[in-house]
C-alpha cells in the first residue's frame, strides 16, 4: 500500500516539474522576445540597443538561459514566481487575486454539470418512453458540440439584453454568476452524462437488478437504490478530463462575460509572452491536475473493495 502511495505521489511531483520545465523551454523556443512586446510594434526598429538591454536587465532576461531556469526553479520551489513583465505585479499575488472568481465559476459549474449529468442519466434509465430515452441519450453529444462561445452569446442576448434578468458583464455578486455557470456547465456535463448513461444502462441489465425486480421493487427504487451507487463510480475516473474541460471552458466563458479570472489572465499572459506569469499559472494548473488525479487514485481503493484486494495481494502475510 505504501509503495502504491509513493508511486502515485512521485508521479504527481514529476508532472508538476515537467510542466514547469516544458513551459520554460517553450517560451524560450518561441521566436518572439518578451522585451519587444513591451513596445509599440511599429516602434521596434527604433529602440536603441541600450534601452532594450536595460529593460531585459530589469527582468533578468539577459542572463544565460540555464541560469535563468535554475534561478526561476529555485524561487518557484519557495512559491515565488517573480513579477509579471506586463504589469509589474508579483505573479503569486496576481494569481491569488484571480483565483476566487475562477474557483467560484469552476466549482459552481462542476456542481451544476454533475446535477445535469445525473438527472439525464436518471431520467434516461427510469423512463419507459422510448422517444424520451433516445432524446436524452442524444443530449450529451449535443452539449459537447455546442461551442461555449455561441451558447454564451445566445444566453446573453436573451437573458441580459432582452429580458434584463442578469447583468451582462463583470462580477456583481451572485446574479452575475448565473449565466456563466450555465454556459460553462453545459459542455462540462456532456462527457459525464454520456459516461453515466452508459454505465447506468449496463448496471440496469445486470443480475442483481433482475433479482430486485423479481422481489417486486419499482423501477424508480431500483435506479435510485441499486444502480445509482454502482454506476456512479466510473464518473470519478474522468475527473481529470472534467477539470481540463472546466479550464478550457473558463477561458472562453470569462472572455464572453468579461469576468476577471485565471482563464483570461492565461490568454493575455501567453499573448504577451509574460514568462513569469505563464509559468505561475501552468504550475498552478499542473499542481491541481496532479492533485486531483492523485486523490482519485488514492480514494479509489477505498470505494472499490476489489481494487483493495488486488493491492493487498503482493504483500500477503504468512498464515
Amino acid at each position: 500500500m505504501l509503495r502504491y502511495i509513493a508511486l502515485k505521489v512521485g508521479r504527481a511531483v514529476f508532472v508538476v516539474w515537467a510542466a514547469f520545465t516544458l513551459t520554460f523551454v517553450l517560451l524560450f523556443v518561441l521566436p518572439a522576445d518578451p522585451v519587444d512586446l513591451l513596445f509599440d510594434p511599429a516602434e521596434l526598429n527604433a529602440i536603441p540597443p541600450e534601452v532594450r538591454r536595460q529593460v531585459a536587465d530589469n527582468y533578468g532576461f539577459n542572463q544565460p538561459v540555464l541560469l535563468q531556469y535554475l534561478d526561476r526553479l529555485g524561487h518557484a520551489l519557495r512559491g515565488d514566481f517573480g513579477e509579471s513583465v506586463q504589469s509589474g505585479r508579483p505573479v503569486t499575488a496576481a494569481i491569488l487575486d484571480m483565483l476566487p472568481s475562477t474557483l467560484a465559476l469552476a466549482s459552481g459549474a462542476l456542481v451544476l454539470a454533475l446535477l445535469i449529468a445525473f438527472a439525464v442519466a436518471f431520467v434516461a434509465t427510469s423512463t419507459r418512453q422510448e422517444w424520451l430515452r433516445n432524446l436524452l441519450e442524444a443530449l450529451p453529444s449535443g452539449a459537447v458540440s455546442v461551442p461555449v462561445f455561441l451558447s454564451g452569446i445566445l444566453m446573453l442576448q436573451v437573458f441580459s439584453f432582452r429580458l434584463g434578468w442578469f447583468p451582462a458583464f463583470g462580477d456583481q455578486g451572485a446574479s452575475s454568476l448565473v449565466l456563466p455557470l450555465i454556459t460553462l456547465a453545459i459542455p462540462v456535463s456532456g462527457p459525464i452524462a454520456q459516461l453515466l448513461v452508459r454505465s447506468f444502462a449496463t448496471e440496469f441489465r445486470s443480475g442483481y437488478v433482475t433479482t430486485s425486480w423479481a422481489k417486486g421493487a419499482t423501477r424508480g427504487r431500483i435506479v435510485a437504490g441499486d444502480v445509482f451507487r454502482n454506476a456512479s463510480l466510473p464518473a470519478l475516473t474522468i475527473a481529470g478530463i472534467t477539470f481540463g474541460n472546466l479550464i478550457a471552458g473558463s477561458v472562453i466563458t470569462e472572455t464572453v462575460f468579461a469576468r476577471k479570472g485565471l482563464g483570461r489572465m492565461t490568454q493575455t499572459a501567453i499573448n504577451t509572452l509574460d514568462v513569469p506569469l505563464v509559468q505561475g499559472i501552468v504550475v498552478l494548473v499542473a499542481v491541481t491536475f496532479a492533485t486531483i488525479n492523485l486523490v482519485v487514485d488514492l480514494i479509489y481503493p477505498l470505494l472499490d473493495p476489489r481494487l483493495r484486494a488486488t493491492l493487498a495481494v503482493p504483500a500477503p502475510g504468512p498464515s
Partner: protein
Amino acid sequence: MSDLRSAIENAGPGRRKWPWISAGVAVLLVVTGIAYAATRGGGAAPGAAGGGEPVRGGTLQFALIDYQRSPDPQWGTNYAESLIGNNITDKLTWQDPKTGEITPWLAESWEYNKDLTEFTFHLRKDVTFSDGARFDAAAVKANFDQYVRGDKALGVNPNGATLLPGYIETLTPDDFTAVVRFAKPLASFLQASAFTANAQPGFLSPATLRLSAKERTDPRKVIGTGPFVYESWQEQAKTVLVKRAGYNWSPPALGHKGEAYLDRVVFNTIPEASVRTGSLTSGTIDATLDVGTTDEKPLAAQGYKIIYRGVSGTAIFFNFNSQLFPTNDIAVRRAIQAGWDREAVRKTVLTDSYSVATSVLAPSVPGYVDYGGTILKFDPDKARRILDEAGWAPGADGIRVKDGKRLEVKLLGINNLVVNKPAYESIQQDLKKIGIDLQLTVVPIPDYTANQAKAKTDWNITAANRSRNDPAVLNLQYGPQLGNGAYVTRDSVGVDLDEVTQTLGRLELTLDPQTRKQYAKAAQDLLLDKYALVNPVYNPSQVIAHAPSVHGIIFDAQSRNHFVDAWKSNGK
C-alpha cells in the same frame, strides 16, 4: 435485449401516457414564452438627448476592449492604459486636435533655442498633485529623469527613452521654470510634451516616483494632477475614476473651467464586440469604444451617436523593403501603389468613420499633402505599363516573371484592427489582375513582433501604422538611423541613403511652421514619389458609440479620450 428484467416489468399494468404529453406541452409553452420575450422585450430606445447647459454629477459607464494592466500611465502600452492615464495626469502642453497647434496646459508659455536642443517651459503656479504636493520645475525634472532613464533599483523601465531620444537633463533655474536639454536638435519634442498615447509623459507626484514598479500597481498610490483620480482598479474587469476636487487647470483651448462635470467614470473591459453593443443598447453602459465596422450603422439607426477621429500619425502603411527581391525594384513598388482600387476598399471594407489614405501622413498631421489624385490613384493600365517596361512579362498562371523568378511579394501584417485583413485581401485581388502575387501573412501582435525581427531578410512588406501627430513621425519611422521602415542601406538599388537621411532628418531641425511644411512635403515626395518606399492604405479610426444623453467626450490629437468636459443629460 428482451431479457428477464423487461419481461417482469412489462408484466405489470401499463401507465397512463398523459403526464408525458402534458409535460411536453409545458416545456413547449416555456420555450415559446422565452422566445417571445426575446423578440419583443428589451431594445428600448435610448434616452432623450437633451442639450444645452452641462449637467453636473453622475457616473459614465464606458466600455472598451482592452484592460489596464498597470495603473502607471508612464508605463502603459495599450489603449486602455493611455486612455485612462490621460484622465488622471496632465501634460506640459495640449495639441489642438484640429490644427495640430501646440497650446498651453501645465506650461503657460515656452521658448526654445535656435538649435532646438533647449526648451524652456514657464509653468502654471496653481497646480497641485492630488496628494497635495506642488507641481513645479522640480517635479518636471524628477518625472523626465525617471521617464527617460528608468530606475533599476525601483524596477522602473526607461519608458520615455524612445519618445525623448538624446535627453540630457532638466534644469530648474527657478521654482516654476523648467529647461529641458537634448544632445541633438529635437523639434518633435514640443509635440512630445503634449503626447497622450502609449507610455505618455503624464506627470506623477514625487511621492509616486519614489515607489517601485511593484508598489505602483496599487492605483491609490499613483498620483497625478489630472481631472480624475483613481478610486479602484480591478485587473481585467474595470477601473473607476472619481473627479478631483478643486481641479482647475484643464487646457485653456478646451474652454472648460473648473472640475470635471462627471462624478465618476467607470471603464469596463468587455472583450466581446456583441456584448459591448448589447450592453449599450440595453442601457447598462452609456458609451463604448472599439465599435466594429459592422455595428456602426445599426447603432446609428437605433439613435445612438457615433463619434470618431482618425488615428493621427501615419496611415496604415505597406512599407517596402528596398533591398529584398522583388521590392528592390522601384517598378514593382510603383505598380503596387497604382495597382489597387481605392474605391472598392472604401465601399466594401471601410465605413464613413475611416478613410482611404491619400498620403503616408494622416490628414490631421501638420504638413500633410494630398497625393490622392496623383501617385496614389488607382490606375491599373499605368501599373501594367510600368511592369512591362521593367521587363516583368506575364507568366503562364498570369503572375509576371522576370529572369525566371515569379513576382511574389510577401507581406507581414497585424490583425489587431478588424479592417486590416479584408482591406489587404481587396488589394491582393486587384494586384493579381496586374500580375503581382501578394502573399498575406496577417497575424496577432506577438507573432508580428517575432517576425518583424527578421523583416529585413524575409518580408517584402511590413504593414502597420504609427500614432504620432507630428510630421517628424516620418523621420522616426523611415529615418535610416531610426525606424528605417523601408530598410534603406547602401545596398538599396537606386536609393540615395544620404538623401533619405537628410530629407527626413530635417524635420527635427525647425519649428517654423512654413519651413516645416516644406520639409514635410519634401519628405512625403521622397517616400511616396521619388523612391516609392511606401504604399499607404487607409487611415484607421477610433470609433465611439454613445447614448444621446452623453455629451462632451473629447478626442485629443492622438485620438485618445478626455472626460473632463463630458456630462450626462440626466446627471445620474
